[in-house]
C-alpha cells in the first residue's frame, strides 16, 4: 500500500536528532512490548510479513505520531484479535475473559536462547533459474497495490542495474495476506541518485534496494 510507512524521500519530518548514550530501552513497557511481540510471534499463527503489514496499515497521523514500540503493540493487538487469541472484551477488561484457540507452540524461557539464535530464515528454493544476472539493466514495475509490498514508491518505474543475484526468498506481497510463500529470486538493484530524485540530486549518490524478481522487467 502507498501507506504512511513508505517514507523514502518524504520531507518535513524534522531532524534526525540522535540521542547520546541511548539506553537499549527507554521504559519498562518497551521491554515487555519487545518480548510480547516475539513470544506471540513464536505461536506460529502469522508470519513476519503479515506482522509488518499489521503495523504499517494505519492512518498516517497514528503511524507518524506513535513511537515504534507503540506501533508494534498496536500491530500485535490487531494480529491477536484477527487470529482469535484475544477478544475485544479481553482488551476492554484488561484480563482474560474469553477463551482462545490452542497455539501451535508456546515459547518457554528455557527455549529462548535457541530460538533467538536460530532466527527465522526466509530463503527458499526456487524452481526456476534466476531471470537476471549481475550487470543486467532493469526497470522496476510501477504499481499501486492496496496490500503489502516491499517495493518503495520512490523506486517504482525506475531504471537500475542488477548488482547481485541473492537467493530465493519468501514473497512478502502474497505471504502477508495468507496467499502463500511463493518464493522468488531476490536481487540487489542499484540506482543512480539522479534516476530516483532527478537531476538536482547529489551526483555522488547511489541507492540500492533488494527487489523480488516480479518487481523487475528488463530495460
Amino acid at each position, binding site marked *: 500500500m502507498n501507506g504512511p510507512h513508505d517514507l523514502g524521500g518524504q520531507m518535513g519530518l524534522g531532524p534526525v536528532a540522535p*540521542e547520546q548514550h541511548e539506553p537499549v530501552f527507554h521504559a519498562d513497557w518497551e521491554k515487555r512490548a519487545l518480548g510480547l511481540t*516475539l513470544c506471540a510471534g513464536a505461536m506460529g499463527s502469522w508470519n513476519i510479513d503479515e506482522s509488518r503489514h499489521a503495523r504499517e496499515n494505519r492512518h498516517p497521523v497514528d503511524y507518524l505520531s506513535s513511537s*515504534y514500540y507503540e506501533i508494534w503493540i498496536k500491530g500485535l493487538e490487531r494480529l491477536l484479535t484477527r487470529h482469535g*487469541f484475544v477478544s475485544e472484551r479481553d482488551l476492554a477488561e484488561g484480563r482474560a475473559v474469553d477463551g482462545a484457540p490452542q*497455539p501451535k507452540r508456546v515459547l518457554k524461557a528455557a527455549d529462548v536462547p535457541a530460538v*533467538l539464535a536460530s*532466527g527465522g530464515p526466509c530463503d527458499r528454493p526456487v524452481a526456476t533459474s534466476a531471470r537476471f544476472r549481475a550487470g543486467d539493466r532493469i526497470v522496476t514495475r510501477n504499481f499501486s497495490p492496496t496490500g503489502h509490498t516491499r517495493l518503495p514508491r520512490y523506486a517504482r518505474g525506475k531504471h537500475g542495474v542488477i548488482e547481485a543475484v541473492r537467493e530465493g526468498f519468501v514473497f512478502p506481497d502474497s505471504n502477508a495476506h495468507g496467499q502463500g510463500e511463493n518464493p522468488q529470486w531476490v536481487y540487489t538493484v542499484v540506482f543512480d541518485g539522479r534516476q530516483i530524485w532527478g537531476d538536482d540530486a547529489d551526483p555522488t549518490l547511489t541507492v540500492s534496494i533488494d527487489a523480488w524478481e516480479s518487481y523487475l522487467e528488463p530495460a
Partner: protein
Amino acid sequence: MPHDHDHDHHHDNDLDPMDARVRALETILTQKGLIDPAAIDAIVDTYETKVGPRNGARVVARAWSDPDYAEWLKRDATAAIESMSYTGRQGEHMQAVFNSDDTHNLVVCTLCSCYPWSVLGLPPVWYKAPPYRSRAVIDPRGVLEEFGVKLPTEKKIRVWDSTAELRYLVVPQRPAGAEGWSEDKLAGLVTRDSMIGTGLALEPGAA
C-alpha cells in the same frame, strides 16, 4: 515562531499511557497460557546484556586484522559471522559492505526498521523514526552532518535500503595509527554508528 505549533516529538517515558496497555496485554496472554512471562525476561536479557554492537565490532576488528577473514566476510557474511557465533534473529541473511577511499556506505530501512540484530543488537530510536528513514535515501550528506560526519565532496555515497530479508553491516575503514593493535583493542574503535554508516571508526587517540 511560538504559535507555529509543530508536532511535538513523542519520547517514551515512565508516565507513558502505553504502560497500562502493554501490562493488560501481557496479563491477558499469560492468563490464557499463550505466553510465558519468563520468556519475555529472557528475551529482554538477551538484548540488554548479550547481543549488541560489541558483536559487530569484533567482526569488524577481525576483518581489519585478517585479510582472509575480510575476504570471507565480503563473500559470505552469514557464514563468516556465524563462525564467530553471532547468529540468529534478524541476522539470518547477512551482507557486509566495506567502506573505501572511494565510497561510504549507509544503511537504512525506509519501510520499517530492518536492522542486523545479531551483530548490532536492537536499533536505536532514530533509526526507526521517520526523519532518518525519509532523509537517508535523498539527503544522506545532510543526515551525516547531523551525526557530525562531514565527508569529502567527491566521496561517493551508497545507501542500502533494507527492503528484503538481507541485513547489512557496514565495515568502516580502519583508522591510521592503530598498527599492531590486538583485535580486542581494535574493536574498541568500532562504534555502532560506524557499522550503520552514520559514523566513522574512532581515531586511536579518541578510543
